[in-house]
């Protein structure tokens, strides 16, 4: 029972800002608390930026899941990148193939209620983030 609420194409850093706004809107729609919303938006920001920087662009879509009264927001981000060789290492803190802090994936994982990542060199990387209202 999911219906897609928004879909953002990710190509530039401006699109990341747009994805953040869409994430904030989706969280507001389920009546999420500010802290939950801030955490989810930040996680979306990390994942969307990864798709832009490492994944040669991609798409992030937002939908609602769960029965009325306990709705959650699900964000699915897919990119067209080369995939991640060692996912466990990528999610661990301090690891970066670029010049960043290396906290994005692990941080995003800690910010949401459910975090899932799959990656292959052929299909790129797919990250699923799920967050409840409280």
């Amino acid at each position, binding site marked *: 029972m999911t219906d897609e609420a928004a879909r953002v194409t990710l190509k530039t*850093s*401006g699109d*990341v*800002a747009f994805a*953040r706004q869409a994430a904030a809107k989706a969280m507001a729609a389920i009546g999420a608390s*500010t*802290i939950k919303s*801030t*955490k989810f*938006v*930040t996680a979306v*920001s*990390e994942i969307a*930026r990864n798709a832009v920087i490492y994944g040669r662009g991609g798409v992030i879509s937002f939908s609602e899941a769960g029965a009325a009264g306990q709705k959650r927001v699900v964000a699915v981000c897919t990119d067209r990148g080369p995939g991640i060789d060692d996912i466990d290492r990528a999610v661990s*803190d301090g690891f970066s193939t670029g010049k*960043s*802090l290396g*906290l*994005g994936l*692990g*941080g995003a994982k*800690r*910010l949401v209620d459910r975090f899932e990542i799959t990656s292959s060199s052929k299909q790129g990387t797919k990250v699923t983030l799920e967050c409840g209202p409280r």
Partner: protein
Amino acid sequence: MPNETTVASIIINDYDRVLAEWLKVQTAEGVKRTDLVSGKESEQQSRELLSAMAKAMPKEATDDDLDLAEAGWEPVRDALEDIAENRTQRGVSTTEMGWFIGALKQPLFKMLQSELGEKPRVLMREIWNATRLIDQISLHAIETLVSKREAIIERQRAEMTEVAAPVVKIWDSIVTVPLIGTLDSFRAQTVMENLLDAIVQWEAEVAIIDITGVSTVDTMVAQHLLKTASAVRLMGAECVICGISPKIAQTVVNLGVELPNIVTRVDLESGLAYAFDRLGVQVGRGSAGA
């Protein structure tokens, strides 16, 4: 094949009639947008485009070798540029722009039909040529329209970054920069440059970065803040980051970002109080008027 009727010969020789018919079709198709572009302007634009075509046509191929990028089509490209410029400002949509030029097909086809009705093969060829020509022109027009809009967006973005980072001297030896909105790499760079310049200019000892207006602090924003802070320190000043709300604090902790050696405060007031304290500035209510 001398004097055979072609798209080109019709536009060149029957210019007035083509124009009149074209304007009529524009009205009938409802693409004139008289609310946005006055009838007079529309007529003027149509006239300019058509005469530019008439000018280019004797020299340039209108058959399969048609290529709008050729030098001879320059007047047409210029005319489209003007029309697109004018229409972007008025908010005309790309569809309307396409239809505006596409409306030229009907009169041209009709005239070709009446001239070449006896020669179906030539007629077919010329109709094909006319279609290609008009489609190319209308695609070019739409592309020009879109690129004009992109230019406007780009300009607005540039304006945003311009106003985004005003560094203010709020006290002797204290400068502050209030950050608002998103902090992408480009803006972070601007902020850092402005701040470092201000430190030199005003011989500042404390630089306060106020992030109250930054809605999301993710790892990239944190990294930019860390970099700016260490650059400030290299200049011999101290960096204070203030405006960290409870939700931002919790998020940053979850992210695992640490801000070592950086003084942070809840709001600008406490940031300023810290700076006063460091510089030995005493602020108190005076006994003025007593």
